[in-house]
């Protein structure tokens, strides 16, 4: 389960970007986090992923509690992120992109890492480009590689930041199918940050909306 309690985040002395946010996401479900741009969706996602400290409140992921002012490092690796810009490592091949983190952090034995990465790549139809470098891939291939890279750390939660922005409708559906497939295969908790309510209604179970009053659950199937 993911729980955010009274989380407030401000940058420097400016007004808080997030104020007293409460959020509870059920385990094993795919949820959407909707909201207009500038509402702090990405900042909330970064707080969940342990990339941003916060000023008050707490974040609980799978039993790991991080209070305001504490190190956010325990969240990293537990919470996988597929960034909007994907951020694949351009100097590494697809396979090395996927195996770098487990090898370096010692999460998996190097030999096992390659086999596991290939299995995951194959499940998302990108095993044939495993030796290519990211620059050579199509946008969709890159996104699926970024997902595999995040999955390799066996996260409890997978976060997507605007995975459908700037895509045409058929490609958006492709992303939706991928997200659903991962949910069904792994049973993992997924949160998709998006500003596209139609897409969210089609591909996600629960829908949360972030506005200046906080987070409201608008659909609970």
């Amino acid at each position, binding site marked *: 389960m993911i729980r955010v309690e009274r989380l407030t985040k401000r940058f420097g002395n400016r007004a808080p970007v997030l104020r007293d946010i409460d959020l509870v996401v059920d385990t094993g479900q795919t949820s959407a986090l909707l909201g207009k741009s500038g509402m702090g969706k990405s900042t909330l996602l970064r707080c969940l992923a342990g990339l941003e400290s916060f000023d008050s409140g707490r974040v609980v992921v799978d039993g790991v509690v991080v209070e305001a002012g504490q190190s956010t490092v325990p969240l990293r690796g537990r919470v996988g992120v597929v960034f909007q810009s994907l951020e*694949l490592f351009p100097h590494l091949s697809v396979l090395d992109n996927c195996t770098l983190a487990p090898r370096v952090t010692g999460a998996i034995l190097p030999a096992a890492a390659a086999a596991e990465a290939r299995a995951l790549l194959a499940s998302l139809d990108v095993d044939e480009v495993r030796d290519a470098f990211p*620059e050579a891939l199509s946008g969709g291939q890159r996104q699926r590689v970024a997902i595999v890279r995040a999955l390799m750390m066996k996260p409890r939660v997978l976060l997507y930041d605007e995975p459908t922005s700037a895509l045409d409708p058929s490609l958006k559906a492709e992303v939706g199918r991928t997200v659903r497939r991962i949910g069904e295969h792994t049973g993992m908790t997924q949160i998709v940050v998006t500003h596209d309510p139609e897409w969210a209604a089609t591909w996600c179970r629960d829908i949360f909306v972030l506005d200046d009053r906080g987070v409201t659950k608008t659909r609970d199937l």
Partner: protein
Amino acid sequence: MIWRLLLLCSLALPAGRAAAEAVDAGTIDAGTVADEDDGHNDDDVAGLPTLARLKARGELWWGADAHGGAPFVFQDPRDPSRLIGFEVELADAIAARLGVRARMVQGPWDKLLDLLERGDFDLALNGLEYSEDKKGAVLLSSPYYVAAQKLTVKRGEPQAPRTLDDVKGKAIGCLPGSLAQRMLEGRGADTRAYDVQDDIYQDMVLGRTLGALADEPIAHYYGDIDHRLETRPERYGELRYVIAFRLADADMQRAVDDAVAAMAKDGTLRAIYERWGLWNPETAALLGDSDPAPHAVATSFEAWRSAVAVRPPFLERVRHRYPAMMPLFAHAAGLTLAVSLLAMVLAVALGLVLAVARGFGPRPVRWLAVGYVELFRGTPLLVQLTMIYFGLPELGVTLSPFSAGVVALGLNYAAAESENYRAGLLSVPPGQLDAARALGLSTTQALRHVLVPQAARVSLPPMTNDFIALLKDSSLVSVIALTELTKLYGILGNSTRDHLGLGVVVAAWYLVIGLPFVWLARRVERRLGQGRRRGAIAGAA
């Protein structure tokens, strides 16, 4: 990749060190010393008084500048691996009387007293002029030679001065800080000071000056041998050459004075001066010799005249003279390369630390890194080198010339390298660090595996450029008594009066040691760029 490069450099370290030890601290063998790679290491006898120490090690270390040229201490133009000169013979004779061998230690002439103070050699013997104001800083021996000042002019030049009373407003060459310069300035001449004595006379031949005033030995060896020049018979002033010792070495001073007095008495000195064509009335009076006229043939002077008065044709030099100089050049190139390589390893490693400290450290560390970069980038390398070599001993840190050269060049270039890395790190999108962290990598792991390899792509080309610049800047270490390529070029150019041909030779040496690194860097660049290019090709297909 950068780590592999670092590893490569560190593997080169022992080799560089060995080369460095082989060439050591700029010692050039004089006369009796045979073993070239013997080194110049005083650790075993440190702590003893100088006289006891030189006897314990069996060698008298005397400081001089072979760049000064003939007839003092210079490379034999007929056999450039040999160091000759009347002061070489004098040093050998003094050493023999002390029961040891002589070893010449190379240092820039205007820094000889500083190097003496630092302890780089036991005494300085190189046409040092007796003066009262030196006495506070060093002990001086009794004079061993007296030189008059002689005016040399261009033959047949109507504007040329005939005597010293005729120099007002005329361009006259001399050595900087010399008695000649003071005499010329006192008479209102347009004084032109040259560091290298051959240049004084070359510029007169080229018509840039009308005359030259210098110590008689210099006028004799550079003016008299050129038929286009004429040395006037008038003798001006009187300059006494003395040997300098550290203030604490009164026993050395006495021992050397006794040796010189004995050699004056038994005719050893007269024989040396006659052989070199330097016997004159003033020196005869100084040594208490009643016969001011030379009797022996000045064989050494004649050898010099025949070797350099007429420059052999270029092909002749290429066939015989330059090959004979190759061991000297190889030695100096080894030193240049060793200093540069080790300095670059230091610069690359320290530069990386600085760039990371500046980009990722807590605020005080960041400020320190910025301060370091501005300080070392904003002040001249020569100042840093001089401070490290001559300044640090005041604080109790005395580095060998080789270490001081490596440290100074390394610290200086670290500032430049850190800026290279910083530019490289800034070129990596910030999202890359986020992505690495979100995957659970620590900052160090992210730097090592994600940021630095990408930064290296941007940093490597300017780094190659810096290494070539460092290779050339390493010529500055000649101010701290290291005879590297540029210094050797100066020394040989002055002793053979062949600046153009030797210039080509030394340029070739710099290219030979620099180009392999350019080639290596291109290969590494290609490999770093490989992912992108291979990817792009695959994408196009």
